């Protein structure tokens, strides 16, 4: 009779999907409190992680830790392997608690500055 090996657990890999249903982390909420966040909005932690704020989940702490340096919403989602929708709800919680600052991309509302576009072209050529 074959002995139990770690190999028996191979089915539980990334392809098996999340062990926790995505929106369980948000208690079923699908929209953040307050306004929504652009995918390329930047998040910065206001306080170091480790603060004991009641009601925070491990995912909240992970966001605060990852956002010590400015990081975009989409990169945060990818880094922490959470869906965009879930990240947005959790960011809404953290914003309400005053633990993060959010910076929306300035370009989202107005036509792009021609000087910025020139800088992009020059930057791309120089790469």
């Amino acid at each position, binding site marked *: 009779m074959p002995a139990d090996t770690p190999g028996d657990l191979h089915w539980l890999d990334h392809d098996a999907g999340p062990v926790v249903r995505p929106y369980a982390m948000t208690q079923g909420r699908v929209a953040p409190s307050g306004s929504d966040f652009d995918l390329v909005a930047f998040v910065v932690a206001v306080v170091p992680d480790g603060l004991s704020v009641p009601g925070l989940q491990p995912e909240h702490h992970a966001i605060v830790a990852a956002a010590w340096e400015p990081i975009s919403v989409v990169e945060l989602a*990818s880094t922490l392997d959470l869906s965009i929708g879930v990240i947005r709800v959790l960011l809404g919680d953290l914003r309400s608690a005053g633990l993060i600052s959010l910076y929306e991309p300035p370009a989202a509302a107005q036509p792009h500055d021609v000087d910025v576009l020139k800088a992009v072209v020059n930057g791309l050529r120089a790469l």
Partner: protein
Amino acid sequence: MDSVRSDRNGGSSRIPTALKILIAGGFGAGKTTMVGSVSEIRPLQTEEVLTGVDGADDLSGVEGKTTTTVTMDFGRITITEDLQLYLFGTPGQDRFWFLWDELSQGALGAVVLADTRRLEDCFPAVDYFEHRHIPFVVAVNCFAGARAYGAQDVSRALDLDQGTPVVLCDARDRDSGKEVLIRLVEYAGRMHTARLLDSVG
């Protein structure tokens, strides 16, 4: 610890400006490849879990299923410390059009990748960006073995507005991808200038 924080709040860690570029095109046109070849970071994927959205999977017979997952590719190019480009490969399936609306919000412009063997696959993307006046270029991904067409032929076949650039490219090649992006940003600049002139004239 306080001194570190006051440094940060004093502006030592600046918030970059991020610009979005969409990479669109039909299934298999090379969107993921192009994002990967020009991105400075390993191309990343993120998921959007959709809940009870119209046009999501047909639920008849599987009424218990309430979510569906879309994967988006994205990559990043740092232009300067203060300026970053984000590239988003758009989800290919038509039923995820509403995600395009979010992605194209405030976007600098778009690249529509075309495969001349299946040119019709990029019609929806061309229509989408034309109707929303989002600057775009058509990049013809020159697959090995694909019959070579000139940029003029493709422009005519797609019935593009006059002035919309058509660029031949190799989505696997970083320099080629960079050239496509340069053409797009230059074109976006020309369009914005023209609009500014229109609005004052």
